[in-house]
């Protein structure tokens, strides 16, 4: 189609070509400036040369004419109808949302309230879970074995590679770090005790829990969220299938089984990495490292670590399910809910770890 053209001859202005969005949008700026310079009342407009006129072209002219038809204008009849429907003035600008001084306070208040809200929600979910679990011993048919096993596979077995790799590398890093310090005092053998207690008691459980919170936490929240979007949660409810029993409980049980095992696996990997680095840096043979380990590290540390793993598993699954069930059926809420689930799960794990550290401060150090 022909380009839009403005022909000015004294006080006569002729418009030609296609005045449509597709033809106009690239040069609407320059055309508007040209039209704006022609605002004198005694301009004679001739629009009969316009081949095509759409809403956009009409509005562009209409605005240049100050929202009314000019005194002297020649139009094609089919274009006249277009102009007759246009508004008599500019519409009011849309209200912009600006930050009010009070908004910060309101925001802080809302966050605090929502924190309590989440705590209450978590407590409710835990209660539902305990009630559901209490039903199971008398109704063995209801135990969701398949779901539990599938969840152990997804959150446990499939996490072996990443937790193993991270464990070995952190073990190597720590071992190097301590070796440098210990060599200064000639206390080389202490590497076994430091690494043993550090890994079994703190690092193994924490590393495994944080990795699982990122992996399985996100996957649980997103899965439940999409089930809300696709109405699968509603379908479960109308079939009389308890979502607590069939969705939440298997995930919680699976993580309570899988995470302690992953903790053991991460412990082993980290100690293995540390052992290699100790041999390289301090000349402690793997044989000496292994034989020294049981005598220098109290077994309580191992049980404490595994126990923490079980609690972390419970908390991660619970938090992820809680945020997943709150997801609204839209894309924004899905993203926000998944993020919140991972962030909250990791935060709660670290807070709990600190509580454990204080509560068990006289256990396992001999």
């Amino acid at each position, binding site marked *: 189609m022909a380009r839009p053209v403005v022909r000015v001859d004294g006080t006569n202005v002729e418009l030609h070509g296609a005045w449509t969005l597709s033809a106009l949008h690239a040069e609407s700026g320059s055309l508007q400036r040209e039209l704006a310079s022609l605002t004198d009342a005694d301009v004679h407009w001739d629009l009969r040369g316009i081949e095509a006129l*759409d809403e*956009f072209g009409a509005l562009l002219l209409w605005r240049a004419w100050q929202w009314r038809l000019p005194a002297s204008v020649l139009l094609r009849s089919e274009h006249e109808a277009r102009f007759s429907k246009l508004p008599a003035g500019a*519409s009011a*600008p849309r209200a912009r949302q600006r930050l009010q001084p009070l908004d910060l306070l309101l925001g802080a208040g809302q966050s605090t309230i929502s924190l309590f809200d989440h705590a209450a929600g978590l407590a409710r979910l835990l209660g539902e879970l305990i009630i559901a679990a209490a039903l199971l011993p008398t109704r063995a048919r209801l135990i969701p074995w398949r779901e539990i096993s599938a969840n152990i596979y997804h959150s446990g077995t499939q996490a072996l590679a990443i937790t193993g790799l991270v464990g070995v590398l952190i073990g190597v890093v720590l071992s190097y770090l301590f070796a440098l310090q210990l060599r200064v005092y000639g206390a080389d053998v202490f590497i076994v005790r430091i690494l043993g207690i550090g890994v079994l008691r703190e690092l193994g459980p924490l590393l495994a829990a944080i990795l699982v919170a990122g992996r399985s936490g996100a996957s649980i929240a997103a899965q439940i969220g999409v089930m809300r979007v696709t109405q699968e949660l509603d379908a479960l409810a109308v079939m009389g299938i308890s979502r607590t029993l069939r969705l939440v409980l298997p995930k919680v049980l699976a993580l309570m089984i899988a995470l302690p095992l992953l903790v053991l696996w991460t412990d082993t990997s980290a100690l293995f990495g540390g052992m290699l680095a100790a041999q390289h840096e301090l000349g402690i043979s793997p044989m000496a490292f292994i034989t020294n380990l049981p005598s220098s590290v109290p077994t309580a540390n191992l049980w404490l670590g595994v126990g923490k793993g079980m609690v972390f598993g419970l908390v991660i699954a619970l938090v992820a399910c809680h945020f997943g069930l709150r997801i609204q059926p839209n894309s924004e809420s899905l993203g926000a809910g998944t993020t919140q689930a991972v962030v909250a799960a990791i935060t709660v794990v670290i807070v709990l770890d600190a509580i454990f550290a204080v509560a068990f401060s006289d256990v396992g150090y001999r």
Partner: protein
Amino acid sequence: MNVIEIEGLWTGYGSQIVHAGIDLAIRDGEVFTLVGGSGAGKTTLLRHMLGLESPLRGSVRVFGQPPAQGGFDAWRALRRRWGVLFQEGALYSALNVFDNIALPLRELGTVDEDLVRELVYRKLEQMGLTRTDADKKPAELSGGMVKRVALARALILEPELLYLDEPTAGLDPARSQSFVALIEALRTALHLTVVMVTHDLDTLVELSDRVGVLVNGHLVAVGTLEQIQHLEDPCVHSFILGVTGRRALASQSMTTRPTTT
């Protein structure tokens, strides 16, 4: 002139064949309706015309250009010439109604915000929506309103070609009637070519200039409603019987209205 030309189109996934050699030309300014049973390949054919699928064999051309190919500028220019109404509306849930409709205009990058506002308000008005609806999020809208907003968004760039995927699915009869009237009015006002997929016989009868019947991946008949009624194909027959049966029923109830005493 033909807006869409499909020649010898084959589609399939794995061993399953969706389309087996489809030839179709859609003319400028007509309303073309694709009908067929569930799983006949209607939606996939529509996706080919939209460039969302690539043909296994054969070619699809929209405005003379293969929609699934081409450089970035050509790819974008083609998409500015058509508008699409998805079955579920496909409104962006993070944006409110106003921003949803304004998005294609703002993407052009050359239209100032004052004009965007006027154009969006004009479109809202045309679709029978109010300015208070402009601030709502898609989640707050009813099914009929979602369709209207989605249609406003599809039409905001003044397209030459409009695709409608099940435009009246999920609407009650009264709303679907007014939606059909809306599309009919727009079509005469804007000189649109419309490609539509529908299961709704009323929509089909009221809007279509020509109909294409898809059965098991073959386009078994193309023509006006009158033309395809006389075809002998059993599949076409069963579908059209539904149409004529309905019409017969409608005319009967008009003439012999039951009287209550």
